[in-house]
């Protein structure tokens, strides 16, 4: 007998507003379902925001902005592209996008994991932070645009550039401006002018290698890629040069 908890519940999102859809999802989860399939999703916002716990959600179509914002626990797979604000201030859980992500992905995320197969937009991972065992991991398979990881305060960001053509470089400028925590691993190189003043560049040490290997393995498993092939390329580590980048601005 299938327990209610294991039951797969399919929800047709066609024609529903975000409020209606999310109310329906709350209802379904409250009734004990832990596996949801959403079909015909078309721009509905805040999916997963108020669904706490160990829930798996498969989204077919295009979820709207703030997918998984403030989310606490669920694991979401997007079979398509995501829009802006994915994982905004996310607390825990996982979002896998079999396609592209939009702008401000992972803003202020404080935990959980985000894996995006292709490219993402501008202002991603701004002010991502960590505390104790809460440490967000974001792996972007493609490339990102400007202001990536501005004010970054914690967590791990991996930028793989798998969508770049041979010899093509990441275009993002102002990477890590104001960075004061966390670490960024970039496959390949970025020029100094692309980095914020608060960012240091280094080779990966052993701890970095382990951390990167783990993140890439998880990413590759989501999309059926070969992790060794991804890792065979050189990586650059970006780190915060100071814990207190603006400590000397002021007169007391």
């Amino acid at each position, binding site marked *: 007998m299938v327990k209610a908890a294991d039951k797969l519940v399919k929800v047709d999102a066609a024609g529903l507003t975000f409020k209606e859809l999310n109310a329906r999802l709350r209802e379904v989860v409250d009734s004990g379902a832990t596996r949801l399939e959403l079909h015909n999703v078309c721009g509905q916002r*805040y999916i997963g925001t108020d669904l706490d716990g160990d829930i798996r959600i498969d989204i077919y179509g295009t979820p709207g902005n703030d997918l998984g914002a403030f989310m606490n626990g669920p694991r979401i797979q997007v079979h398509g592209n995501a829009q802006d*604000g994915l994982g*905004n201030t996310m607390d825990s859980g996982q979002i896998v996008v079999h396609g592209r992500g939009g702008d401000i992905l992972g803003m202020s995320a*404080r935990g959980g994991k985000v894996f995006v197969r292709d490219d993402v937009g501008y202002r991603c991972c701004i002010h991502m932070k960590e505390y104790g065992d809460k440490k967000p991991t974001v792996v972007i398979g493609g490339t990102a645009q400007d202001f990536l990881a501005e004010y970054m305060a914690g967590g791990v960001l991996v930028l793989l550039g798998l969508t770049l053509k041979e010899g093509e470089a990441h275009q993002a400028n102002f990477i890590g401006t104001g960075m004061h925590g966390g670490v960024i691993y970039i496959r390949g190189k970025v020029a100094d002018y692309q980095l914020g003043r608060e960012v240091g560049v280094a080779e990966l040490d052993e701890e970095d290698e382990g951390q990167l290997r783990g993140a890439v393995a998880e990413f590759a498993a989501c999309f059926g890629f070969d992790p060794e092939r991804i890792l065979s390329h050189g990586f650059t580590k970006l780190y915060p040069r100071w814990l207190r980048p603006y400590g000397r601005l*002021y007169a007391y």
Partner: protein
Amino acid sequence: MATIATMKTFLEPRFRVERDPERCIACQVCVNQCTFDVHRYDEERDEVLSVEQDCVGCHRCAAFCPANALTISRRPPPYGENANWSPGFMEDVIKQAETGGMLLTGMGNDRGYRVYWDHLVLNASQVTNPSIDPLREPMELTTFIGSKPDRVEFSGGNGNGAAKPLPPQVTLQLPVMFTALSYGAVSLHVQESLARAATEMGTLWNTGEGGLHPSLYRYGKNTIVQVASGRFGVHPAYLDAAAIVEIKIGQGAKPGIGGHLPGEKVSEDVSRTRMIPTGTDALSPAPQHDIYSIEDLAQLVHALKEATNYTKPVSVKIAAVHNSAAIASGMVRSGADMIVLDGLRGATGAAPKTIRDNVGIPIELALASVDTRLRQEGIRNLASLVICGGIRSSADVVKAVALGADAIYIGTAALVALGCHVCQQCHTGKCPWGICTSDPHLTKRINPDIGAQRLANLLRGWSLEIKEMLGGMGINALESLRGNRLHLRGVGLNGTELDILGVKHAGS
């Protein structure tokens, strides 16, 4: 930023410390109380000596001296009289020449911009309509915070309830709340005092953007939690705990800029509550990077409503600036259930002095223009209007309500009730009164039992005074005064000012 070790400071002491040798018993209370090391005990001479240079004029020593031996006074300006180059400007230039930094300061604007409350007077009933005796008649100060529908439909038949549920409302027993004072800026004992007083008096306190300490979750029903650009300590339990969730866009003391809580204030406990590692600066960026427009604001407002399942009002707070009226219209249309305006005189734990003293507009003008604009657009009912930044007394509260406010946040007044002497040293972390500090030695200076009592007393006193003023006007419910500007008259204001405030001049 080049500080040469041998550079002699040209700054002269701002305060004079006079110790009456006849009275001083060398008990060293002043030595222990001063956090700026002004007083020093000389064992050989068995005397307490003072170095005036570092005195900030907080009066902690004078207040605690058991022999009343200390007098702290402002030294007369050491410079020649000059209306342009007042001592403040002189001192600032000297300090910057010696440090090369941005001048930091604490508390609110001290520049003396016109305080409109002091140019507004209230009405009272005489002969033609009776005043009401609040000692005899019930006086209603209850205030409901939340969006009110355009119309209420009642179900027919025997039912007497509204046909549709109202948007979430929060009940205040008086229209005064404690404004955002974050843990890290103020101590946990201060927050506990605020939370307990708010609970006792049936009003709300506000966490600011520093998260909610685990020990304060029990006061959740009387708590407003903030979501600001740093998103510190924002997680599902935090949002669920609150009565209201407030999005902080701006603050009256520092409109348009972010905040940097210095690493040395990020102690173990502050770190736990803000959820950032100890010792790192807590940086709040200037904008929220997911809000670049009213549409983006609407997105966050609704994200928070979704995150809390539409069970609580969502507030949006801005600093009062030139275009507040238009912005406020957008805020209401974004779905905010409460909007907050923080005026030019609003205080802070730390802000660049030049921003604090020069950016923003007086709260009275912002309030009047926002209330007018929302009424003109027919959307005033959709959000409660709350103001802060320079409310010093119950009379200011009553005038604010008459100008159109639903409720008032107090910050400085609450801190003064706790002992603050407005010495403007909050940014140093060395608050001698134990308020604006995370130094465990200093935070003990506030006892939450006494703090809560002092704050509750203040609100009780104001409550009585508000009822007295209302009764005098012949009004028995605060609701009847809201936006009732006929009860106000201006004194010594020009035509433009009267026009913006929407009040007549006294005598007309």
